[in-house]
Structure formats: C-alpha cells, structure tokens
C-alpha cells in the first residue's frame, strides 16, 4: 500500500429508490467511473418491494406467477448481475459499490469476499456471529439462515450491483422464491438474530459503508446525502422515459 496517500470513498445516501432508477444510475456511474469523471463510490439505499433475477434467468426459482407477485405490491426485474433470484424491500440495507478493481488491487473473488466480510463485521457489532457461505453458496449466513446476499457485475474491472443486508425487512416476501436458488434454507434478519435493540437503519447503513471502506483500504469516507444526490437519481430516471 502506498504510504500516506489519501484514498477517498464517496458514500451516496439515496434513501428509498426504485430498482430501475438505481440500475440506470449505476450504468451512468460505471461509465463515469471508467472515464474518471467520478471517483470510487458506494450507493447506500433501500428499495420498495422488488424481486430480481440475475443473468442466468432462473425463473424456476420464482414460486408464484409474476402477476401474483405484482399483486403483492412487488416489482420484478431481470438484471445482468451474477447470482440467482432475490428480494429487496424496505428495511433491507442495499449497497452498490462502484469501484475500480484495478485501483483497489483485487480480483472478482476477493472483492466479493470483501463484501461478505463487511456484512459479517457489522453483524458482529450486534453480537451476531455470521459467516460466509459454504462452497458454492453465496452470501452471509447465521447458522443455516441467510442474512445477507451478494450479486455483482464487473465490466472491464469496474463493479456494480453489490450487497443486500437484512436489517428488518418483511421476510414473508422471501417465501415466494427459492432465495438465491438455495432451497430448504431460511432467510433471517439482524432484528431476528440480535439480542440487542437496533439503532435506526441509517446507522447500520453507515456502519456497512465504514466497514467496506476499511476492508478495501480507503482512508476516508465522504458522505453525500439525499439532497445532494436526489437530482442525480431524477436525472437518470428522466433520461430513460
């Protein structure tokens, strides 16, 4: 590591963002990052109820017809990320780091391991002992129960998509999918696993960002809050209609 050089991770706190809007924003930011118009950053947000599928289009892991899932108030998106089907919803912390892997000196596998270790570190703050998945299993687990999911896309060494960490989402939504294609395993949340009271979600988002920054050797985190970012999100939404 170069001694003393300041490496800043920008944290964009976006609040509740629809999945499609976040996707378009990420596409723009990856292009911006490639052209060095922005530096390494992480989007920190939550989604309204949304089911997403990865590149492999594992539709068989949706256990209800799409029209019924929509009837529950959820959106469905097919994406270009790795990984299988998952659910995002309010009270689940979603982080999308847009990083140059070359700059942080990691390959794909170690990057994903870094995302896992950030979630494990934050769970530990609340006395919850989490672990990475066994061989072939993604995400972060408490015993046999999944507390965090990962799905990443890498284009020419730039990352997008990222991690989803269950603070206290409505776990009922997970019953209608085979989460990440792994049957017979429960989904859980920090609320269920922790014996202590949890702070507001924002604090947990901040802890995840700090943990990520440490894991990937950033020296500082610079926070941009909703008011500064809102126009960026709207711009992405507007240019896509």
């Amino acid at each position, binding site marked *: 590591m170069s001694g003393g050089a300041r490496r800043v991770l920008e944290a964009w706190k976006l609040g509740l963002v629809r999945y499609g809007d976040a996707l378009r924003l990420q596409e723009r930011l990856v292009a911006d990052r490639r052209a060095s118009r922005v530096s390494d950053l992480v989007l920190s947000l939550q989604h309204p109820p949304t089911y997403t599928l990865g590149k492999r289009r594992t539709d068989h892991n949706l256990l209800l017809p799409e029209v019924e899932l929509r009837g529950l108030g959820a959106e469905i998106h097919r994406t270009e990320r790795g990984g299988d089907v998952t659910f995002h919803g309010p009270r689940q912390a979603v982080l999308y780091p847009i990083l140059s892997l070359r700059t942080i000196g990691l390959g*794909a596998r*170690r990057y994903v391991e870094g995302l896992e270790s950030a979630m494990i570190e934050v769970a530990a703050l609340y006395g919850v002992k989490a672990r990475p998945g066994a061989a072939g299993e993604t995400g972060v687990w408490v015993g046999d129960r999944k507390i965090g999911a990962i799905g990443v896309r*890498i*284009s*020419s060494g730039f990352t997008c998509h990222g991690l989803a960490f269950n603070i206290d989402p409505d776990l009922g939504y997970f019953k209608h999918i085979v989460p990440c294609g792994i049957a017979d395993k429960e989904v859980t949340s920090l609320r269920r696993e922790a014996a202590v009271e949890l702070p507001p979600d924002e604090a947990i988002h901040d802890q995840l960002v700090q943990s990520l920054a440490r894991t990937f050797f950033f020296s500082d985190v610079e926070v941009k809050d909703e008011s500064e970012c809102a126009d960026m999100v709207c711009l992405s939404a507007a240019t896509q209609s």
Partner: protein
Amino acid sequence: MALRLWASSAANALKISSSGARAAPAYSISRYFSTVLDGLKYSSSHEWVKHDGSVATVGITDHAQDSLGELVYVELPNVGTQVSQGEAFGNVESVKATSDVNSPISGEIVEVNAALKDTAVLINKSPYDDGWMIKVKPSNPSELDALLDSDKYTKHCEEEHAH
C-alpha cells in the same frame, strides 16, 4: 535444451500442453504463481489470443480464472457475431460475480466453445487449452502488435498486485 525439457514436463504436469505432435509450449511462472504461456499475446484485461494462420483463438488467462473463482456459467455470442478489440464479447459468472470478457482482437466469430455451456469450470481447469472461448477470423491482424507478450503480461500482473 534441458530447460525446454523441464518446461515441457512441468507443462505436462500442470496439464497445459496440447495434444498432437506439437511441442509443449514454453512458459514462465510469475511470482504470483499463475501460468503465462510464451507464444500467446495478452490484453491488459487478462485475455489471451493465439494466432494460427487465418484463425485466432481467444480465452481468459490463468490469472483471470484464479481471481474469479470457480465459474458456473459462461455466456458466449453466436457464430457470425462481429467483435472489436477491447470490447466485451461475452461474460463469465463465478459463484458470486458476473464479469465481462473483452476480445483482444477484432473480427468475425467463426466458432464458440460449446463445451463451456455445460462445463464452465473447464476455464478454471484449462484456461489456455480446453477452456478456450471463441475463435475469430481477424479483420486486422496488425492489432496483435498492440497486445502484450508473455513477459510484458507477467509484469502487468505483478504490477496489478503491488497495491
């Protein structure tokens, strides 16, 4: 001569030599223990290309497969697709991440490795041989001159690790 024999038997031991009467390719081990073969050209995004007359074979390097982890899925384009140097032609998915693969040369795809559809892990096991990804009819063979040879590629990998 001795060195070539050593390289050849080591290459065999690592299962990176090819079939047939061709001599096993000479290779070097970088400090980071991934294999780099002589006689191939490399892109800085960790793809290799072997130019054999009118056809060029493309895949990802040992360094790349190692940094991705075990692959579970490979998406390849159709035969006949045009590719451009430096642009993505497909992607590979490991258990956790989907990564684009860029073409080191421009041209028309004349063959794709069908075996990868069911056995993506071939790329991990044999990145320079059985795990080849596409064969391209190069539209501009001079593009190869802009690529890295095995020494420069090895240095490139070492520099990437020096963080």
